[in-house]
């Protein structure tokens, strides 16, 4: 039996956390994540969860506490945004390399400076090489669904990696939507018990976490992380299917929207996909064969699946909500473009960097991108809605 509520993205994530009932949550407030921590803290005060909530003095401490608690054998969560994630940096890498399946919703926000509190993906994109799994959400429902599934994905024995669940700051975090929650008992059953491996608190089997690891073994441990990442897509698919059977909302690595016969396609992460679907509908009515690839998983990067999904398109617009200064376009663009090298069919790709610092993008903007692509009006790297 499901339970329909009006919730913000942050509220839906907080409710997912309530149902996950983590052993430990260490968290520090930062806009626009704060409401997750705030609402979850009220669940703790109301006795709705058994969680040990640690109020830390910074995000560096939040992630450090998570690492310690997770190594001890607890199920652990935190949540952050932008500068908070930046302050965690050192420990974000350590969490992944110690193979600790911490789940962290990241409410995407522009990195300073100049200081800005609104949405872009500069925070999560900076962490793309940290060894964390990264999934994106289109709406509040997906933010909830992804958070529940993230626990299962990260804790899978052949994965054992931390997971970032991305949701767009303000657009999703503060927008109120209709969200279908799982029944509490169903959620508990779906999530299951944490199976620990080498918990520090098992005093009968003492282990050491974090010893010095030099040129003789460090590389082998990195190779293991590569392998764990390679196992992720399969796990995401099977967990997404199981979730679909339970809720009717099946998840995969990506979602194709009118893509099969599309001549001109776009790829995006997060909430922009909602806007882009409306643009595709209108373009189709005008007789343009437009399609969309909504990418759910950015890490691990699903090379094969992306190439397969976009091979039939003639033109592909790749939307990046972050920038790589001095690089050749945004991160999504460079990876998708290089994924096609060596493929028989290679669509013409162009990069559209948009929405930095919360700059709006609407249906008309996206339609213009599709139209410019086919009329040859696009550069290789374009900036949407920036004033000259």
């Amino acid at each position, binding site marked *: 039996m499901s339970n329909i509520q009006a919730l913000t993205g942050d509220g839906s994530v907080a409710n997912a956390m309530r149902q996950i009932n983590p052993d430990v949550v260490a968290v520090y407030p930062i806009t626009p994540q704060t409401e997750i921590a705030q609402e979850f803290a009220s669940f703790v005060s109301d006795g709705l969860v058994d969680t040990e909530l640690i109020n830390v003095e910074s995000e560096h401490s939040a992630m450090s506490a998570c690492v310690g608690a997770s190594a001890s054998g607890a199920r652990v969560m935190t949540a952050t945004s932008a500068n908070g994630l930046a302050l965690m940096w050192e420990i974000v890498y350590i969490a992944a390399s110690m193979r600790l399946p911490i789940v962290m919703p990241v409410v995407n926000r522009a990195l300073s400076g100049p200081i800005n509190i609104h949405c872009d993906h500069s925070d999560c994109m900076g962490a793309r090489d940290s060894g964390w799994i990264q999934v994106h959400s289109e709406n509040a429902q997906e933010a909830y669904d992804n958070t529940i599934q993230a626990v299962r994905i990260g804790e899978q024995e052949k994965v054992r990696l931390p997971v970032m669940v991305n949701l767009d700051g303000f657009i999703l975090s503060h927008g109120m939507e209709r969200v279908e929650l799982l029944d509490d008992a169903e959620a508990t059953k779906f999530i299951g018990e944490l199976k620990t491996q*080498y918990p520090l608190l098992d005093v009968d089997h003492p282990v050491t976490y974090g*010893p010095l*690891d030099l040129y003789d073994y460090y590389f*082998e*441990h990195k190779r*293991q992380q590569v392998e*764990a990442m390679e196992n992720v897509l399969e796990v995401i698919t099977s967990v997404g299917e199981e979730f679909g059977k339970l809720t009717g909302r099946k998840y995969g690595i990506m979602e194709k929207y009118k893509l099969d016969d599309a001549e001109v396609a776009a790829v995006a992460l997060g909430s922009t996909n909602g806007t882009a679907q409306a643009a595709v509908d209108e373009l189709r009515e005008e007789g343009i064969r437009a399609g969309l690839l909504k990418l759910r998983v950015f890490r691990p990067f699903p090379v094969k699946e992306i190439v397969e999904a976009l091979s039939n398109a003639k033109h592909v617009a790749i939307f990046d909500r972050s920038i790589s200064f001095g690089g050749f376009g945004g991160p999504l663009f460079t990876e998708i473009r290089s994924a096609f090298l060596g493929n028989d069919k290679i669509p013409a790709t162009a990069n559209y960097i948009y929405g930095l610092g919360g700059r709006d993008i609407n249906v008309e903007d996206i339609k213009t991108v599709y139209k410019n692509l086919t009329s040859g009006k696009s550069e290789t790297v374009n900036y949407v809605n920036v004033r000259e």
Partner: protein
Amino acid sequence: MRKEKGWKEIPEGGLIVEPGNAREYNTGSWRSSRPIRDEEKCTNCLICWIYCPDSSIIVKDNEIVEIDLEHCKGCGICATECPVKAIKMVPEGEAE
């Protein structure tokens, strides 16, 4: 030399899952000079045994029986601390 293991054979995450396995790590290979003890001079006061950071001074029945060269990394602390100067540090090339 211990054969180094491949990435499929080692515990994930750089964890050490068997307690006390530092013993298997042959720090003796770091040594550039080795301690040579003069048994005549040695009074078996065991000060070197206390100071040795690698537990390489092997004692049996209150007497030094050997210096464990698999683990002695040649720091020379024993030679410095010995009150009767019974230990000499000899460069590896010159020791037999």
